[in-house]
């Protein structure tokens, strides 16, 4: 599957480039742009990032594989992230994790067959005072209870 940036995204990349004195420094924001357009980072997408920025492919690959928010495999339409770190754990984070696992029938980093859901057990998301929490794609849901989790997952269509 070939990958080309859309015209609109090429303009975004140009704007991003201006923030930094080197092309390499723009690699993180440009990876985000590619991931948003393509859903995940295929080899072709990474090659295209390298060619657009004029950096080595290995630079792109090394960054993509270092950070947890870049995905080299397609994730679900709803990427559900449950925090089980200490503050969440103290307030029932693992119960929420088990509940979500059971409800979606998925485990850590698995994607449902219809590609609707993917699940990730994440490290601290910075919501410790509002624990337990989960995030769906970019949105945080805090102060969770069992009922709230049901409601949230049911609302994802």
């Amino acid at each position, binding site marked *: 599957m070939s990958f080309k940036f859309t015209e609109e995204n090429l303009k975004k990349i140009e704007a991003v480039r201006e*923030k*930094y*004195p*080197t092309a*390499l*420094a*723009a*690699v*993180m*924001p440009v*990876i*985000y742009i590619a991931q948003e357009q393509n859903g995940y980072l295929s080899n072709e997408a990474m090659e295209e990032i390298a060619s657009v920025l004029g*950096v080595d492919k290995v*630079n792109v690959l*090394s*960054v993509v594989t*270092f*950070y*947890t*928010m*870049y995905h080299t495999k397609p994730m679900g339409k709803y990427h559900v992230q449950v925090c*089980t*770190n*200490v*503050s969440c*754990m*103290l*307030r029932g984070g693992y119960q929420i994790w088990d509940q979500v696992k059971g409800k979606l029938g998925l485990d850590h980093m698995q994607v449902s067959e219809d590609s609707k859901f993917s699940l990730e057990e*994440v*490290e*601290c*998301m*910075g*919501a*410790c*005072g*509002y*624990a337990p929490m989960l*995030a769906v794609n*970019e*949105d*945080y849901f805090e102060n969770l209870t069992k009922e709230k989790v049901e409601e949230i997952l049911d609302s994802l269509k």
Partner: protein
Amino acid sequence: MERIVLPQIENFNTIDVYLANGGFESAKKALAKTPDEIIDEVKKSGLRGRGGAAFSCGLKWSFMPKTTSKPKYLCINGDESEPGSFKDRQIFEDNPFQLIEGAIIACYAIGAKVAYLYIRGEYHKWIKMMQAAVDIVYEKGFLGEKMKETFGNDFSCDLFIHKGAGAYICGEESSLMNSIEGLRGYPRVKPPFPAQNGLWGNPTTINNVETITNIPAIIKNGWEWFSKIGAPKHPGTILFGISGHVNKPGVYELPSGTLLTELINDVAGGVIGNKKIKCVIPGGSSMPPLRGDKLEGVKMDADSLREVGSAIGTGGVMVMDEDTNLLDVLIRIAHFYHHESCGQCTPCREGTGWMEKTLKRIKQGNGTSEDLDLLCDVANQIEGNTICALGDAAAWPVKFMITRFRDEFEQYVKPEVSMPVPNKVHSMRSTAAPLNNLQK
């Protein structure tokens, strides 16, 4: 009570309210002075970094070379990934303009033309909020080329937001710089320090979001005012993020040196169900934990906490009640540091894994009393033997949790050795040890 970082003014996060309450007046005042005067003012105020190390902010600024042909940079660290720490997002949400104003003053003081605000990638919502605020400030002419006219000064600077992508290690200042440069977030060997060799090899200062947000207030009210708030050696207010088994968890701004018991019992509404406290981690998960029966009189500032064998860290207070299983907590902490170790230094890369595995072995009921010593031993061999402080951060909770709660951990292990030998890291410790030692 004075609130500096999160003032109780309604809609303070809108530009009109911010301007009506003296917004950007401090920047005007600062830009009419010389950079050295600003650095001196901040130095005298006693402001110490709020990112964990509690280093003097003014002193840090003064390390920036005065005469150099190289461009200088300011990085503002909003990576905030320490478990238990969630204060920066409150600033992004409630007081974005004071943060931006602080950044302008800091840039002027150190002579930086560009500031990067590094925000962790998971904070999509808060990144959008900050970007919107930055755009408004540009529009109003307080940033960019237009600020020359606004302030009637030759100085101008830009502020860019850099979005992280999920790596705890990028909160470490040198890996944060690598991350901005578009590299893997590996920490760099120091020296050279960032003030000499930072972003792209240029002089760079890295400050925490909360530290920078304090700056406009110091410029506005003067160093004497600031130095009289809270603990004399660590003045000002601190944003305490309280989580765990308390009735009212959240972020609270209080003077430094506030009693820990007051913070938990009065401000955070006490422990849920009036239970006793077993353990408190006072500054985010990497700081040494305190015993619940030794909290009386503990004050929340850098020096007082050091005296009782812990540290202020990022002010993320985690409270655990008497029913908490500390082994489970420690396994979770060990897992976190194993997961987040960047893999550059062997002691940290391997040691964090060993500690997690050994703790899990204890959880399965196969641990012995010796394993507890083994864990402390591994922790000691990580501590101080790595490029960055993640090694220490991984070692401290294990070492101090086991030492300070040995009585509890002894309950989880069998008293004598039941594991088949050889499994001891002890015997691998030092190849220089005499042979008869190894055979013991």
